[in-house]
């Protein structure tokens, strides 16, 4: 994004579209954080706020997608510019899915509240909050790496993904013990398993984003490689 083109108009188009992608990223970041806040605090109001903003995420995806095809058609970019645009197309698809996961969590919160599950029920929401904190941090790191085109940070994101996976497994085990102790908590626990899975997916999307960043900078597709292999490719 820093290399100058003969056409400064093209430059500003590229940086403009990256900025909008990051703006969408910011929105999605806060959607996830809000959804988890709604869950830990049993707030129906915040859950419905999340669902209301879901539309904005979708609209942004469509708008950025349209601008992308306009730029490709008009400028016929090559090399790094082309990689950037392709990467953006993948990024927004990932971000939109993160938005969907946030909405899924919010809907679950609403359902739990409607079903009369009160905050007094002992649920491992704090473990969920911890998993979510990790996932949001990953997403934030990936977006920061995108803004700075920082491959080192991107590799870090790839490395830390299994932390969330471990957290998810731990939570699953915990929920199973809850369900075995008290069968009345089964339906709620299943809801929470889906929430935990949604949060775990957010982590995966952050990972995809990190791979895309390496693709923009290095031009190599690092998907489906081990983290060690990716690290040596980036060096």
């Amino acid at each position, binding site marked *: 994004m820093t290399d100058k083109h003969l056409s400064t108009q093209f430059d500003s188009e590229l*940086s403009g579209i*990256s*900025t909008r992608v*990051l*703006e969408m*990223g*910011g*929105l999605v*970041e*806060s959607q996830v*954080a809000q959804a988890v806040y709604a869950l830990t605090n049993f707030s*129906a109001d915040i859950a419905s706020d999340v669902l209301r*903003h879901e539309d904005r995420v979708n609209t942004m995806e469509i708008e950025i997608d349209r601008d992308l095809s306009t730029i490709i058609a008009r400028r016929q970019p090559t090399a790094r510019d082309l990689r950037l645009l392709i990467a953006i197309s993948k990024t927004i698809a990932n971000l939109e899915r993160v938005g969907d996961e946030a909405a899924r969590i919010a809907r679950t919160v609403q359902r739990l*509240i*409607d079903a*009369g599950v*009160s905050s*007094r029920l002992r649920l491992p929401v704090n473990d969920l909050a911890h998993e979510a*904190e990790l996932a*949001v*941090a990953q997403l*934030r790191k990936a*977006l*920061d790496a995108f*803004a*700075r085109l920082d491959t080192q940070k991107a590799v870090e994101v790839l490395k830390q993904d299994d932390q969330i996976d471990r957290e998810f497994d731990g939570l699953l085990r915990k929920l199973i013990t809850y369900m075995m102790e008290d069968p009345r908590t089964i339906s709620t626990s299943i809801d929470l398993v889906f929430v935990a899975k949604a949060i775990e997916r957010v982590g995966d999307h952050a990972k995809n984003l990190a791979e895309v960043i390496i693709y923009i900078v290095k031009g190599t597709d690092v998907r489906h490689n081990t983290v060690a292999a990716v690290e040596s490719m980036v060096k």
Partner: protein
Amino acid sequence: MSRVLVVEDEPAIAELMAINLRHAGHEVVMASTAEQALLQVDQVLPDLVVLDWMLPGQSGLALAKRWRSQSRTRELPIIMLTARAEEPDKIAGLDAGADDYLTKPFSTNELMARIRAVLRRKAPDALDSAVEVGMLRLDPATRRVSRDTQEVRLGPTEFRLLHFFMTHPERVHSRSQLLDRVWGDHVFIEERTVDVHVKRLREALSPVSCAGMIETVRGPATASHTSSSPWRHDPDAHAVEVERSAMSWLFSRFLAGALAMVVGASLGYWSGGPVHASLIAAVLGGAVGVGTISAIDTVRGYRLIRWLAGSQEDAAPRDTGFWGEIGYRVERSIRSRERGTAQERLRLAQFLSAMEASPNGILLLDANDQIHWCNSVAADHFGLDPERDRMQPVTNLVRAPGFVAALHLPSTTEAVLVPDVRGRCTLSIVIRAYGEGLRLVLSQDVTQRERADAMRRDFVANVSHEIRSPLTVVAGFIETLSSLPLSEVERKRVLMLMGQQAQRMQTLVGDLLILAQLEGSPLPPSDRCVPLAKLFGQSKADAVALSSGRHTVRFPEECAAQIAGNESELLSALTNLVNNAVRYTPEGGRVTVSWRTRDDGSGEVSVADTGIGVDREHIPRLTERFYRVDGSRSRDTGGTGLGLSIVKHVVQRHGGELEIQSEAGKGSRFSLILPAARVRMAGPGVAGANEQRSVA
């Protein structure tokens, strides 16, 4: 007769409403929790619900929302009753689906009037006023239907059916609607039953020729440079030299040229004499003289140009004459400009370090919202790298939607609240425009402030709830006593309830005053000793009275220790702990008070019980004002919610701490740890006691 469901966790208020509602001729059903209320509504749909906001477990607000979301209860009239009198609360309550909103303390007469008003609007048939349609008149109070003076004889179901039709005229009702509204939706009967009753109703109405009135329808969020280059050469030292005008230099140059020419010419003339070419030699000599001067000038000019083309860090060539003067003047002007620049830089560096020292985050943006400069606080708040992120569009890195939206607005003065990069703090961000399209972003960490505000709001809400509830009961019963003809039994009951509530308010106000006093008064004295035995004696009397034989209460037989401090504060702390232990221990349990000195000399007063205990997660918050473990506001145990706060305050003022160990279902142990400096033991303790007497 209408059925009213009262959902209220405060038994006294519930009873106040029940007495009044019964006297007004309503059937009253009571529920003290949201779960009970849901059950009641599931069984028989009431005509109206009086709903308290603060309920144990699910709040009244959530309950109202839930009822509104279900088709069966969507039309259910709800009156919200709460101690929350703030406008946003009222709005939230009404938006959640309440038809009317009343704040505590309320007047019972007003409540009754509001119940009538809501019933009139939402369920006219539940009201006992006479209805007239055409010539037909129906009076629910006397259960009579008449046309002019001619009476119509009806069965009870037909009467209800006719009442419903008359209060909902000009409308088409389906069989199932009629079943739900007239029979009640808790009744399961065959739909065709409706036909039978309609037929009977028609028959009953035909004698007064009103049968035709019923119709059957068939068929819808830079570094600076300190290189103030130590001048190797200070032109000012040089500048003390004589100031000469440029003209004098031109003249001397001209003079030197002329002199060189004359000297050259005379030398040429003198040396040309022997070869008889004096004149030619004189011209040649003059030319050589002028040429030499020019050559010297050229060399000097060249040196000056070379110096100018270079970095000008060395001193300018110190030549005499014309070129030297030019060099000197140029150098002086360059040096003075350099000094000016250096001063500017120094000022800028000071300015930036002042901004750097600011406790708030400062971020400077250029016209394209790119990061121009930021201080380390801002870098920390937003997770920026001051060097690396320069010229990066700010929204690429600070992506909080609230901040992005505020930045897109042309001008805002309002602060936006945004979580920080780690999501742990709340930042208040202000954006100000300056210069041409430049912007200044100020960020401040307001986490503490927000937290303090929340605590204050909670405290005010709790105090108002705790005080308003008993006040509501007392005021309500006074009204009831003066307006309703109560029986002797009812009157006694009402007076007893009033007495209880007055007592509760007294205790609460007492506790609040103790807390206020603890906060405002000087630290307890360290020279006055209080014998522990005396404290034990007094609190034992209290505990025994409270327990009235239901528990085994054990205090240490003898205790020679004394504690330096304020007697009344220590007594109130101990009494609070012991009374709590008695309250939260079921009948037959044990309350044990013990005293021991620890190895480090500090003393420990423990109150252990075999009561209900507390879950681990609640322990850190137990000493918060009005914190209740079960989230319920029920006053079964008679506490004010301030006891442990008082205990903690007292102990902290005495330099000690409160230790809590507890396990749900097994009992708790509350220990007052008093520092060694405040504990006096047996021997000197006696002297201390004498001393205390003499001081007193």
